[in-house]
């Protein structure tokens, strides 16, 4: 994962407003951020999953077996960091001042002591729990967006991320039955998703891969035109729902006009390539080549309607063309996951509330119910937050930091009320009930 991150990370930052405090990698800013704003305690509570020692059924070793990894200023990479308490975590972050914090799995033993177990040969050191995670990155959409490429994002292509959140979130809840899901802006050009239900954390690699594959429709690679293939005699209910509720509308109302998908020969040829029928292709091409811009209507919409009409009109309804319209829509809108990140327990993923070292933007949570309102260009940057702190003067301090009056306040409040509190409540219930079961069992054995 690290390689990926860096491979794609060479481009300069893009989304960035003009701020009085200069952007960029200034360790002093990070120091202030970790000192006054970063929600250390919330992260620790989250990663403890209710194992806070208050209940006799708690697992005291749980948090200490979690791997954190820090990237320091000069690309120094510290893996397998572990902490036994919130204050240990906080002190280490403040002391080392990492420009990036990654979260790994919970291991069978404390990752800091892994070498002690390395010689036993029996692979005692192994990941045992990990959130189910997803990583969606705008660079994977470069062949279907014309506004920007690489690490750039703008409000014309960001809807692709909105679509991804809507589709994956709905399926995780309705199809897989998960409840505790956190969406996070990755700080530059994508989103991360953390599924934190106990059931999700205990999935095997095989089961994780199965879920990732369930979501995989996009099969394009550099050596094939056809990017999406919807096979099978019926379309799966998940795909039908995604198409009807999200993809179709976003394609026609948003992406078609803003990305101008049919505006030039080069662009419409790319779409024609997806139609497996030469006569349809040449008829459409004929119409479009000598198109006089007569109507006031958007040319992209006109051409799309023509294409749909051709493919869906009664006489052309050939077997092979049956799903062509859907395939085109899926190609241009359907989420593209970085599969490897989801498939394995031991993949690291950047922690929420980190600051992206290139853009200076904070990795804030995104509310999936209002994801269409999310605007990556207005996400608070480190320099903006520091300015707000400076201007704040005598503001009443909340007990755990000074974020309350800054533009980070809403994000932290949302993280607590919509994600952390419900999660911890269900964790406690689970600890309570498994403890009772254990008690019951030991009582039964005593009575024997």
């Amino acid at each position, binding site marked *: 994962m*690290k*390689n*990926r991150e*860096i*491979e794609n990370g060479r481009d300069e930052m893009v989304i960035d407003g003009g701020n009085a405090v200069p952007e960029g990698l200034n360790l002093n800013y990070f120091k202030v951020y970790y000192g006054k704003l970063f929600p250390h305690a919330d992260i620790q509570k989250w990663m403890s999953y209710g194992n806070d020692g208050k209940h006799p059924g708690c697992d005291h070793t749980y948090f200490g077996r979690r791997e954190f990894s820090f990237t320091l200023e000069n*690309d120094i990479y510290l893996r397998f960091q572990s902490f036994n308490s919130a204050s240990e975590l906080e002190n280490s972050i403040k002391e080392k001042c990492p420009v990036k914090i990654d979260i790994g799995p919970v291991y069978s033993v404390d990752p800091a002591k892994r070498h002690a177990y*390395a010689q036993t040969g029996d*692979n005692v*050191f192994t990941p045992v729990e990990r959130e189910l995670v997803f990583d969606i990155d705008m*660079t*994977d959409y*470069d*062949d279907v967006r014309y506004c920007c490429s690489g690490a750039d994002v703008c409000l014309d292509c960001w809807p692709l991320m909105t679509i991804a959140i809507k589709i994956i979130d709905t399926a995780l809840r*309705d*199809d*897989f*039955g*998960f409840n505790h899901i956190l969406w996070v802006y990755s700080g530059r050009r994508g989103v991360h998703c953390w599924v934190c239900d106990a*059931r999700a954390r205990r*999935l*095997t690699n*095989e*089961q994780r*891969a*199965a*879920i990732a*594959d*369930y979501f*995989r429709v*996009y*099969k*394009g*690679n*550099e*050596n*094939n*035109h*056809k990017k999406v293939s919807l096979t*099978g*005699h*019926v379309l*799966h*209910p*998940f*795909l039908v729902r995604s198409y009807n509720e999200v993809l179709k509308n976003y394609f026609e109302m948003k992406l078609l006009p803003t990305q101008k998908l049919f505006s030039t020969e080069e662009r419409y040829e790319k779409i024609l390539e997806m139609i497996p029928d030469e006569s349809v292709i040449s008829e459409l091409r004929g119409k479009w080549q000598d198109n006089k811009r007569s109507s006031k209507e958007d040319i992209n919409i006109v051409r799309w309607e023509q294409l749909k009409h051709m493919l869906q009109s009664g006489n052309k309804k050939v077997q092979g063309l049956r799903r062509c319209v859907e395939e085109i829509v899926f190609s241009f809108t359907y989420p*593209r996951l970085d*599969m*490897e990140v989801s498939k394995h327990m031991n993949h690291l993923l950047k922690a929420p509330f980190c600051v992206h070292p290139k853009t200076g933007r904070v990795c804030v949570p995104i509310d999936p119910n209002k994801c269409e309102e999310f605007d990556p260009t207005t996400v608070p940057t480190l320099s903006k937050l520091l300015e707000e702190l400076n201007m704040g003067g005598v503001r009443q301090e909340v007990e755990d930091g000074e974020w309350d009056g800054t533009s980070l306040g809403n994000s932290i409040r949302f993280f607590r009320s919509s994600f952390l509190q419900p999660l911890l409540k269900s964790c406690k219930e689970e600890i309570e009930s498994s403890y009772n079961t254990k008690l019951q069992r030991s009582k039964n054995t005593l009575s024997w």
Partner: protein
Amino acid sequence: NRASESDSLVSLGSFLIARCTLRTQGGTKMETVRSQRKSAQNDVVSTLPLYRSAPVLEVRLEDFELFAIDRLRVLKGISDGLSRGKKPEEMEKLAMDLWKTNMRHPQASNVVNKDIISHFVLRLLYCRTEELRKWFLSMETALFRYRFRHESLESQRALMAEFELPYKAVGNAEFESLRDKLQVSRSNAQPLSTADAIFYKVPFEEVPELVAGRRVFLQKGLAYIASNQVVSLVGTQFRSHLSKALILTNRKWTSTVREQEKDRLTPIVEALCSSYLGPDYSQPKGFAEVSVKDIDELAKSSFPLCMCHLFGKLREDHHLKHGGRMQLGLFLKGVGLKLDDAITFWKAEFSRKVGAERFDKEYAYSIRHNYGREGKRTDYTPYSCQKIILSTPGVGDHHGCPYRHFSEENLRAALSKMGVNSRAVEDVMDKVRNKHYQVSDYHLYIKMLSVSMHLDI
């Protein structure tokens, strides 16, 4: 001659389950184990055992060995079929044929015993390393699935009951309300009729392959599986039971049995291993060495198309994404490129794109990792064709199997770039259309008279 008689009898149960008494009295008769089962309602008989615990059963030493060899022939046959990329229908037929040919027994009453004995003996052989366990687990699970599918519906149901799965069939009202969505579980275009529709609701975790293929309807974490998909569920169960059992067998073998049996069973097990388990590629022996300067020549003359393509792209772009680095890197390792040479080779290309410093920082680690010098220090083996065919290259990726992942026109271009003549190209295209990806690769190489070394990997 009581002593020698008892020496030639092995009490299976004593090695494979927790019971430790070795029978000392000379039993000349084999006890037969009735594995046939009857379901409560109608007398359904199935001869497919679940191998849940080793039977208390005595076996003559010679049978111990012979039965194991017969079963190995079946498993090897399945393994070969799978790696040749045979289709599921072909595989099922192949497996059943292999079974009938090899697993007969002159006495009909002993057919089931032979099945059970051979299975448990192979557990001893294959429990000893992770690699062996993995292979055995896959092959036995595959075999079980083919045999399960071969059973009648009634006996499938009886077998399912034997797994004691707590899943109930979906009721009529629920079925009606979900009818449209459940269509996705059908293997053909026939609409669902109420009569033949028995669906079970199971946690999606139990049927990963059906989830992965979107072949089941999912709701709130439950997968609705049709009766023709039950094999997937019991296959998973079978696999997880066997997986745990193999770990236990391994513990028992290393802690007691190997020593106790050092004069009797241990030599047989070890001999069986060396003669029938095939070459062990995890040990670097007998490989020709390849040096950096030979790679270009070798790529031209002997690389399979997928590696040729990756190699070309690497030379062109001075970069490959993760999947490509793994596929080509492990292949080069497999053909004998030493770690130091591998670093030199990759560095020469990558540093032209990302600079030497970034190469050392970000890429060298994973190369050392492939050679077992980092992380969990596993000595990784090259990807099999199977794995490459099943991989899923995405944006910017060049790995995978060209015969499967390339469009027809790109495949043609790649082949002619290699200097394959047009008739051979057409031959290959035919094969590809029929989804014989691996065979097409093989065919081509025979035609080109070059080394098909990847086939041995």
